[in-house]
């Protein structure tokens, strides 16, 4: 029997498991192939929803489903934490049971917040990158009656358009509540322009100015003084705030470091087209966990999962070498307020253009937020 083990039951891990299990349902039923998904949580959380929770536009219950309800038939789900990978012995050791043997391994372990990297951040800032953080920010916004709101961005971070979305949504949210005139909105960014993608920055700069947002570039947050309510940058700028909303820096899961397979930041060195762990043809990586110079975003995990699943089906069923290549494809909606949105679509060779925001794209995004589950199940 050929064994596929997938570590991580987020967007990338679930999609790979479901694509492979649907394609190879016959082989799985005959006991020729097994698909095991190992996840340390038994619920899946739709993280793009956190932004809406912060503004009271979605409820937490709309974002959470039990993982067992999202699995195609034939997948064995193991609710446990991987503690070490032994690529020579081809086993994944886990905290609560017998090690899992594999012929092919997929690492979809995601990324998490690295709050410790910025002293004072966890005490002084709010964020919408965890459900708990989004709920705390929501409560703060319910009480907010005006003042200086500062948005800061750590590096690296997932969903690179979220800083713009939060700022533009906040602007309109404050206008609707009648407190925009009492509110100064400051958008900071680590680079010398309003976004890392030149075409997005070119579009965003006048959009932010038009909304009366102050833009402070070359601002890499270095520390926060919660008592003084000041955020300092490593470029030497200090900004006082009444409400600090941070996009915290991220890091990969510690499993990579514990196994001696990850580089600094716990990112797995990954081939940009074949998605194998560098130097190994039986271990693959996707989603936030890679060291690839692409967005850490659900759409990237999705497009990578399609490529990886096709290659795994060939390897598992016929032993044929990987033929499908990942092109660097990414797609991101950008909410530009409470009623309009745009999107960007790009890959390694083609930079994005930003279409005019419309109400229709906003509703497309709202619809996607509610049908994401079909995408996860690999039926869409």
């Amino acid at each position, binding site marked *: 029997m050929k064994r596929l083990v997938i570590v991580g039951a987020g967007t990338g891990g679930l999609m790979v498991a479901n694509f492979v299990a649907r394609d190879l349902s016959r082989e799985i039923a005959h006991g020729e192939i097994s698909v095991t998904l190992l996840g340390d949580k038994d619920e899946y959380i739709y993280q793009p929803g956190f932004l809406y929770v912060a503004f009271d536009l979605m409820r937490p219950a709309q974002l959470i489903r039990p993982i067992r309800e999202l699995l195609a038939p034939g997948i064995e789900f193991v609710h446990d934490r991987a503690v070490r990978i032994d690529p020579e012995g081809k086993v994944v050791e886990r905290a609560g049971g017998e090690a899992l043997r594999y012929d092919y391994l997929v690492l979809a372990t995601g990324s998490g917040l690295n709050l410790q990297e910025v002293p004072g951040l966890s005490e002084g800032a709010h964020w919408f990158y965890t459900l708990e953080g989004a709920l705390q920010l929501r409560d703060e916004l319910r009480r907010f009656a005006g003042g200086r709101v500062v948005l800061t961005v750590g590096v690296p971070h997932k969903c690179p358009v979220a800083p713009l979305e939060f700022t533009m949504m906040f602007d309109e949210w404050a206008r609707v509540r009648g407190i925009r005139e009492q509110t100064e909105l400051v958008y900071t960014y680590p680079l010398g322009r309003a976004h890392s993608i030149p075409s997005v920055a070119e579009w965003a700069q006048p959009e932010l100015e038009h909304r009366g947002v102050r833009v402070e570039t*070359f601002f890499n947050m270095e520390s926060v003084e919660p008592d003084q309510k000041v955020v300092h940058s490593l470029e030497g700028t200090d900004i006082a705030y009444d409400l600090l909303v941070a996009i915290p820096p991220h890091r990969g899961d510690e499993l990579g470091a514990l196994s001696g397979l990850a580089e600094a930041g716990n990112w797995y060195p990954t081939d940009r087209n074949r998605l194998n762990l560098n130097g190994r043809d039986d271990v693959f990586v996707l989603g936030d966990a890679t060291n690839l110079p692409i967005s850490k975003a659900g759409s990237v995990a999705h497009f990578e999962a399609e490529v990886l699943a096709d290659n795994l089906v060939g390897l598992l069923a016929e032993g044929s070498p990987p033929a499908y290549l990942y092109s660097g494809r990414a797609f991101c909606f950008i909410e530009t307020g409470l009623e309009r949105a745009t999107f960007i679509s790009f890959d390694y060779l083609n930079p994005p253009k930003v279409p005019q925001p419309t109400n229709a794209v906003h509703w497309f995004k709202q619809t996607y937020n509610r049908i994401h589950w079909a995408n996860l199940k690999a039926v869409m």
Partner: protein
Amino acid sequence: MADNIMVIDARGSFCPGPLMELIRAIKSAEIGQVIAVLSNDSGSKKDIPLWAGKAGQEFIGVEAHGEYDEITVRKVR
């Protein structure tokens, strides 16, 4: 010495982009580490020295390799 250079292949990186990749690497590197960024974004050879100057890091130079540039910076603080 060449063995100690950390190379970041940011070719094809529109988002987060070569400079963001450099900032990510520099934050976790030791002081004294030399980092070379490979970029086919023509803006990088302007953006990276500008940021290095702002952030108090040492810009070493740019080497053109046909379709891409190799931009080198040393972490000094």
